[in-house]
């Protein structure tokens, strides 16, 4: 089976059971790759269907303060790309859920597009999300990613007009990342009222699964997406737990933080997997 079809399969299975897929996001290397590896395993056990791994970047303009700070902590400890790939390689075959890399085009371009895609595939990633490579600029890169049998996930925003969405969807594979709010990543209390309309419109334009991210943090929000979306993405609400490790990374504290994250992720997974 290709890496790409693993993503499609996960969504298909959940859809068959009338459930939502749950994709937690974690920032790599905060506080180190050993912890990231352990988190991947904990999240898989807690019910994650896919796991999104963020590659720390120095200028993440799409990210709110929680993920920015996590990236800064990792980069201040001199986390390098090769550390991320080797850390992910060490755990990717031990979890059944596909891993998706969230990575800035600045990093991909600097590494060399083909070299980056090959290394990502070898590390065990099934797909890539490149938040600063909009659909218009993505055709060439999408073809490259497809040649390596991975998915390039496209993003659609609340500000994307219908005709623009149609152009973006031409290059889309795997699933469509639906940005829930105009703004950066980070937990919000409410879902935007126009989100439902956006999802209904996208549903008419594509047969790909729709996963919703940005601002999602509670089981109640997940409930509201039932019947509208095929998956939920939760990032800042998980990453914020890692901040506590910056001041205290003793084994006991580490265990406590892992437990917190696993319990929280479990609550979102249960909401996502509750039958419609």
């Amino acid at each position, binding site marked *: 089976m290709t890496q790409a079809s693993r993503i499609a399969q996960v969504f298909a299975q959940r859809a068959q059971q009338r459930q939502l897929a749950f994709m937690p996001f974690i920032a790599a290397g905060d506080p180190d790759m050993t912890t990231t590896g352990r988190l991947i395993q904990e999240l898989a056990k807690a019910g994650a269907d896919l796991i999104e791994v963020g590659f720390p970047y*120095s200028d993440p303009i799409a990210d709110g303060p929680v993920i920015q700070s996590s990236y800064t902590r990792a980069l201040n400890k001199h986390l390098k790309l090769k550390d991320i790939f080797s850390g992910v390689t060490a755990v990717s075959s031990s979890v059944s859920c596909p891993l998706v890399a969230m990575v800035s085009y600045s990093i991909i371009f600097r590494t060399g597009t083909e070299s980056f895609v090959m290394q990502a595939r070898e590390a065990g990633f099934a797909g890539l999300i490149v938040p600063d490579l909009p659909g218009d600029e993505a055709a060439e890169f999408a073809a490259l990613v497809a040649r390596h049998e991975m998915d390039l996930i496209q993003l659609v925003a609340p500000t994307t007009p219908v005709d623009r969405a149609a152009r973006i969807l031409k290059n889309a594979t795997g699933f469509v990342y639906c940005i829930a709010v105009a703004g950066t990543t980070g937990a919000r209390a409410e879902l935007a009222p126009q989100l439902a309309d956006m999802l209904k419109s996208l549903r008419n334009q594509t047969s790909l699964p729709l996963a919703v991210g940005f601002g999602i943090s509670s089981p109640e929000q997940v409930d509201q997406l039932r019947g509208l979306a095929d998956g939920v993405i939760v990032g800042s609400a998980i990453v914020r737990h890692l901040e506590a490790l910056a001041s205290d990374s003793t084994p006991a504290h580490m265990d406590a933080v892992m437990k917190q994250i696993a319990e929280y992720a479990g609550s979102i997974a249960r909401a996502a997997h509750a039958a419609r």
Partner: protein
Amino acid sequence: MSNAQPQSRATSQVPDAEGRFGEFGRRFVPETLMHALEELTVEYQRAMQDPEFNRRLNEMLRTFVGRPNPLYFAERLSEECGGARIFFKREDLNHTGAHKINNTIGQALLTLRMGKTRVIAETGAGQHGVATATACARFGLPCVVYMGEEDIRRQKLNVFIMKTMGAEVRPVTSGSRTLRDAINEAMRDWMASVENTHYILGSVVGPHPFPMIVRDFQSVIGREARQQCLETIGRLPDEVVACVGGGSNSAGMFHPFVDDVGVELTGVEAGGRGDKAGDHASTLSFGTKGVLHGSYSYVLQDEDGQTMDVHSISAGLDYPGVGPEHSYWHDTGRVKYVKIRDNQALETVGKVARMEGILPALESSHAIAYALEQAKRRSPDEVIVVCLSGRGDKDVNEVAQLTGRVL
């Protein structure tokens, strides 16, 4: 990696519809901003073809900014160099004391035209912040300026002026706390506010169409200088010199000369304390091709594509990227890029003050310092025009501190 061979000859007829200057430019931003950038591109093109928009812009430049400003013969400095004659294009005489207002007036008029009701901006030295706050005050637009904490410390005077003009100055505490992080924060604000807010970007950086819009509004500098040269010396200059941080005053100065192949163009970057990474902001001397702040250009970055910290004595040049058109001019060989150290720039402030009675900004002093060196290598019948992009009042605290004096 690129080899140093110049590509085809540079032309002034860039960018193309996708925002390409040669291979550089384009748009690498989150999807949330894409529609606004497309709208801005269309609306800008309509505005430029609208005689009423141009009439209003020109009237504001004349009656509010004080254009045209003079082309001034720096007689005593030229005599001392004993070579080429040096002329200053006096952008320091504009209202608010720098070239930045040429762009903010234009973009504020665009804001009104697009029906947006709020403006955000980033600032490094504070000159763009002041110019934006000023334009917004003039047109009654609420204005938020993002500024790095480190720059707020270095540029207290400009912070005070912005607030007096009614703008809100939001300190940026992430990353290096300078211009680069101020741009990040302004972009984040824009992600959430794009429906009603226009982002008045202050340099020729960022995603298309910003590098084109800012260059066009700043090109009044080069158009005037070119015309004034023809009138005063009866011909075009031999060399035109301007400083380059993001590169707005230099882009505006150079663009009208790009097709005059006999005119040498020289951009002066911040050489900082030395050539070691982190000690300078010489993007075109030491950078590599990459993506920063939504455009593809040269960037000071590490082998993983992480942006590096930079240093310059002048807050306005303290930036790890450069406008994509400069990268295009660099690779085609149309513009030569050189660097001047902190201490040379600092000495030049004093020298220009004593010999010409003009206090230049630290940024502009980089360009003047290079022009003084170059004048010595050229003959007295040759002419160098320097863009004196701003006045130095904002720098007096920093200059006093660095030269061991008390204000």
